[in-house]
């Protein structure tokens, strides 16, 4: 494939493996927070419409947590977006420009959704029945933002479509007509619903000392949602796999050994995940899911390189080594994690004391 419109990449300051490592380390964190945000809110909205005093107590807990998980979903999204730009920026910037009008709309939509979430939290009682409509609006906004994100992530993998720019220079392209788009979007969002179920169950557990009923309801709703959403997502995953370009799909079918091994482990892990969830083994389900999300991120990485294999591979990036800034970053990271751990410890002590 000879595509004249693929930009020339800039040089990188360390071997690409470092950036890939950091990308694969931080992206699952974003996925976990994003899933808790979207899935937790979806379950909250459903419970809010369903009503009932116990259900509303659960919904209120979720409303309190929503602004917090939005903050972490955003923050944990920054790091992988940064590292992916180092590796694939020349594709990502291009696709962003091709769909610029939609891409930039993410910012005001997110601000509205975020303020909506705080309003839902701070005015939960005063809002009464209107709160569920507010929560639904926030959910729709988040789903729309996800729709634009998946569009961009898909469009950057389709350089053969870049030339369509000349017919639409106002940034109004999308990739949603691509056969893999819909299963990809659904796979991401139904996965979010499943993980959101675990988040709801976890949120309930934090109330175990004060509201036992709520904890039981949260675990019941959360694990059931997780189980059924995962079953559905397995089917969507198969659809997604079949919708991939044949050359990309075959990477997971033996053509690329690490990718195939990863895919096989993921399949086994899915079975294990369903079994432990069926048996209501909460922490086992959590750890299976976290491992699964990491594996999914790895497969997503192979998927990306598979899509682009004819026009680009990471070995083409020119390295102009300078490692001291990276050491500085790792030092800052360790220091930051230490600070956060200390603050959470102090907050935990204060909460226990109060």
């Amino acid at each position, binding site marked *: 494939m000879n595509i*004249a*419109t*693929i*930009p*020339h*990449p*800039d040089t*990188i*300051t360390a071997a690409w493996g470092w950036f890939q490592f*950091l990308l694969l380390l931080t992206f699952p964190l974003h996925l976990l927070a994003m899933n808790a945000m979207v899935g937790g809110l979806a379950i909250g909205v459903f419970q809010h419409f369903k009503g009932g005093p116990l259900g509303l107590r659960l919904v209120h807990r979720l409303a309190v947590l929503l*602004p*917090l998980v939005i*903050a*972490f979903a*955003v*923050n944990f999204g*920054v790091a992988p977006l*940064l*590292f992916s*730009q*180092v590796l694939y*920026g*020349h594709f990502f*910037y*291009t696709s*962003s*420009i091709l769909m*610029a009008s939609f*891409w*930039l709309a993410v*910012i005001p939509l*997110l*601000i509205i959704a*975020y*303020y909506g979430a*705080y309003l839902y939290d701070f005015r939960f009682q005063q809002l009464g029945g209107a709160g569920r409509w507010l929560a639904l609006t926030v959910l729709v906004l988040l789903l729309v933002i996800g729709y634009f994100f998946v569009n961009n992530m898909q469009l950057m993998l389709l350089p053969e479509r*870049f030339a369509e*720019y*000349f017919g639409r*220079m*106002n*940034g109004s392209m999308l990739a949603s007509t691509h056969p893999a788009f819909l299963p990809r979007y659904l796979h991401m969002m139904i996965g979010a619903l499943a993980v959101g179920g675990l988040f709801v169950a976890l949120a309930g557990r934090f109330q175990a000392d004060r509201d036992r009923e709520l904890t039981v309801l949260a675990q019941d709703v959360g694990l059931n949602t997780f189980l059924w959403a995962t079953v559905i997502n397995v089917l969507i995953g198969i659809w997604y796999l079949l919708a991939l370009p044949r050359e990309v799909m075959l990477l997971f079918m033996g053509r690329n050994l690490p990718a195939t091994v990863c895919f096989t482990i993921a399949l086994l892990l899915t079975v294990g995940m369903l079994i432990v969830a069926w048996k209501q083994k909460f922490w086992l389900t959590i750890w299976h899911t976290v491992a699964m999300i990491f594996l999914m991120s790895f497969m997503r990485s192979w998927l990306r390189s598979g899509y682009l294999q004819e026009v680009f591979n990471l070995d083409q990036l020119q390295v102009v080594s*300078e490692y*001291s*800034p*990276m050491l*500085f*970053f790792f030092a*800052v*990271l360790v*220091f*930051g994690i230490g*600070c*956060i751990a200390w*603050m*959470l410890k*102090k*907050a935990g002590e*204060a*909460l226990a004391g109060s």
Partner: protein
Amino acid sequence: MNYPVWYLPEIGGGFLIALIAVLHVFVSHFAVGGGLYLIYAEKKGLAEKSVDILAFTKRHARFFLLLTMVFGSITGVGIWFIIALINPAATSFLIHTFVFGWAAEWVFFLVEIVASFVYFYMFDRMDPATHLKIGWIYFLSAWMSLLLVNGIIGFMLTPGDWLTEQGFWRGFFNPSFWPSLFFRTCVAIMLAGCYGYLTASYTKDIAVRQAMTRFSAQWSLVALAAAVPFGIWYVVVLPEQAMGLVMGKSPTIALSVRWGIGAVACFLAITLIAGILRPVWNLKPVAFAAMLCALVAMGAFEWIREAARRPYVINGVMYSNMLKKAEVAGLKTSGFLPSALWVRNREVSTGNQKAAGKELFIHQCYACHTVGGFNNDIVSRTAKMTYPALTSYIGRMHEIRPFMPPFAGTDIEAKALAAYIVGDLQGKEIKEESVSGPTAPGKAVFEGNCSSCHEVKDMAAAMQGWEQKQIVETLGTLDQISEEMTPFAGTEEEKKQLGLFLFSLNQKTEAAGALSEGQRVFAGHCSSCHSPEEMPDKFADMDRTEILDLLGRLGEINDVMPPFKGTPVEKGALADYLEKVQGGQK
């Protein structure tokens, strides 16, 4: 040329960046200074054992959380989005060069989030000493974020030694790093006082409102006073060209400076009068007026800083239109279109001249110019220019207006660009002028140097009654007429040619641009001492032969007059001219 351009001709990318960036910095600086303000407000409440002041601090912390965590952090991501959409080449360059600086900033952003949540949600639920420590962690991590971003933004303005030796740290600790950091820290504290002033205006308890109004005003005034020396230091370290622009060479910066000074003066007045002297006057409209002043001042500062880099987006490295300085010379030879990725017209031909010109406009001009929009509209900016004038101007615009990048392309591409602007956008005729005559060289100089700002008829009106000598002298001191102008930088010969052309505009005997050879000879040999108006009297009743005779013995008329040094043909032409101007009585 490496990336596509998001083309919204009437809006322009610069406007979108400015809109998001100004609003973001207004909140993000508050996010830094506000952390320190909360610590000291809480300490004040604890020291005075005032439940009301602590309640005020908690209420302010909630406002702080809602504003900085939502609007501040998301518009921060928004800046990243918009700069990557408008200038992906520069964004990619900065991301790749400073990736671990950005990554470290992300860590501090994460610490900020956790600290601000713990600070707000644990208010009254944590022992005060630990709570204050959380406040300090918040402030220091926010300040570290400022420090890191400051290093990278400073690099864009003053890359310093990085230009010759590269390296992360050399670029990061650039010449404007420290003055900018201290200046911004002061601004952040000033804004914290301003926002505290706003929260105070909403406080119902009169005593608390007055106490916290005065407290906030003191913060703002002390920080504002401290910002002055750092601001001066900041300007002093600017490169020569940037300093020139800041000091008045750029009309937009000059306007921003006036707005900024006015806003600071208003802010100072409000804070002094309705903050320190009469805190009871801190009513909501007054507080919002102070906020508006602070926003305008902040916007003016950021605008000046951005504009001072011009014509670069990264000083000395990359122009605003994404072209690297190092590649421009090659593009002038090989052409822009053949090497650009995102164009359809790979070369200019008679059939595609305007279409190719449009692509050149999109890739080289649209970064700063809209088409029919309110921001730097190319249509109104070039309304006075003809096709030849614009073609000539495009080749020299970076010399005439040093804040504009050079055109990176061949002469044929420059003509294509001019054809698009004059033909398609102005609707004028595209015609190569074949001018000849004595004033033709001067006219060409005028079109290349002056026509972007001045119309011929305006110049004729402005210089009516001027002698050619006076015009030539004035060309050397144009900066005394306006700070936006620089003395004519062409050669002495070009200056004379331009002077002759401008002088000819008011000569009634000949149509401008088509003066006789005799008039040219007069202008070149006589006009430094004589005006054409005095000639009819001097040569009254003389015929051509007598005039010729007189021209051969000028030294006999007057000791200070040099003999005529022109050729016999020129002498004949001059005689014809002088005979004509004295009325042709003979």
